[in-house]
């Protein structure tokens, strides 16, 4: 089966869109569904799905971009490390343009820092193995889809006996921020489009407490356009029937219990801690730092650096964007002072940033 083609079928997408229009036709108040995964943000824009949905259904973006929700201090520390001699910073492409307090990894690279984009953290381990005289730091940013792969890289480095591989970890976990959003009286979300691959790891059961406490429907949805439309359709039916259950749309991949092995690897290599989220504040147990048993791989401990004074950019509304309270077009800086070439905040240049998506696809 060609999965990419089958789940991008135009007829199915349009049929589902018509069904959603039929179900919601005539509603005075639109149903608002929030996605909390940057890949959903991008998929919805890339396929132009909003233009297929009726005005009675509104899709908004939440804190789904792990780079965007990471405060500037992390990037400032990474930049400080990149300025050290004999140190290679390895990172996913997503981080390169994100502005820290005064610089970005891209600019540091232009000034001579050894910063390399890798596709997999295992590639970073290989770079460490091939460069024994240098320290290699991998920037570990991401939710629970990515965190196990970084844990895997630490295990691989350990198995190879490498002493020069480090991870600067800034992982965040779901679904804690969703509870905060649901508890916010200003935010009226009628349902959550739950992330596809995070849920493959943590399991759909993870959303049950949120669902029960806040009586909000949660549908674990895939990233292909048919998946998103079917997920929205399932949310519409629940919302209109006053139901609040967790459902799995992306059942070909996601299980209720998730991936036990990946969860075990996470629990072994990482320890939860109270992490700061840009715009939201500190959420208990919402971050992952490297466990004591693996502290030899923790870049923050092993490579002390002086980090510049934190400067969050004034006027930047990334925090409000990430809570779904302000739309990109409503930010006074959008497409004026803040552009992908000259960004003020992370949302405009992270590859999954809400503002980046709006700028690229919806102007």
């Amino acid at each position: 089966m060609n999965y990419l083609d089958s789940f991008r079928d135009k007829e199915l997408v349009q049929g589902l869109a018509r069904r959603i229009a039929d179900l919601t036709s005539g509603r005075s108040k639109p149903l608002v569904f929030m996605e909390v995964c940057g890949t959903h943000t991008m998929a919805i824009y890339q396929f132009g799905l909003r233009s297929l949905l009726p005005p009675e259904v509104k899709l908004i973006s939440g804190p789904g971009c792990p780079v965007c929700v990471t405060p500037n201090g992390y990037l400032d520390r990474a930049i400080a490390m990149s300025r050290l001699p004999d140190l290679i910073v390895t990172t996913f492409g997503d981080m390169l343009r994100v502005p820290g307090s005064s610089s970005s990894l891209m600019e540091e690279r232009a000034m001579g820092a050894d910063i390399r984009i890798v596709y997999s953290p295992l590639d970073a381990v290989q770079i460490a193995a091939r460069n024994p005289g240098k320290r290699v730091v991998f920037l570990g940013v991401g939710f629970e889809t990515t965190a196990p792969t970084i844990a895997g890289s630490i295990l691989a480095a350990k198995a190879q006996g490498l002493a020069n591989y480090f991870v600067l970890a800034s992982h965040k976990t779901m679904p804690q921020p969703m509870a905060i959003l649901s508890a916010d009286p200003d935010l009226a979300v009628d349902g959550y489009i739950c992330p596809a691959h995070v849920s493959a790891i943590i399991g759909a059961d993870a959303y049950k407490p949120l669902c029960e406490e806040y009586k909000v429907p949660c549908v674990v949805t895939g990233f292909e356009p048919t998946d998103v439309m079917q997920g929205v359709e399932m949310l519409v039916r629940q919302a209109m029937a006053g139901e609040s259950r967790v459902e799995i749309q992306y059942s070909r991949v996601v299980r209720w219990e998730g991936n036990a092995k990946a969860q075990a690897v996470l629990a072994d290599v990482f320890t939860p801690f109270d992490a700061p989220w840009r715009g939201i504040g500190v959420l208990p147990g919402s971050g992952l730092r490297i466990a004591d048993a693996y502290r030899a791989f923790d870049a923050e401990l092993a490579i002390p650096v002086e980090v510049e004074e934190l400067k969050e950019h004034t006027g930047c509304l990334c925090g409000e964007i990430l809570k779904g309270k302000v739309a990109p077009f409503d930010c006074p800086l959008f497409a004026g002072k803040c552009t992908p070439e000259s960004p003020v905040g992370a949302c405009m240049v992270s590859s999954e940033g809400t503002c980046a998506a709006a700028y690229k696809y919806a102007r």
Partner: protein
Amino acid sequence: MCVGVPMQVISIEGDQAMTEVDGVKREASLMLLDQEVKVGDFVIIHAGFAISKLDEEDAKATLEMMREIFTPELMG
């Protein structure tokens, strides 16, 4: 942080598999997979790791359900 591509396993050697999509091949680690995988299976590859198997039967059933949307009389 979730870009994951369905790729087909074309060979397995220990914890590593060679996977393929649209004729493009890349090696992937099976270290994080808690399911049995054999040649011919589809897996979701993220950042060089297989994170889950793809259930082909379920995929077909899902597509069927989506097609049923076309016959609103069945949905009532």
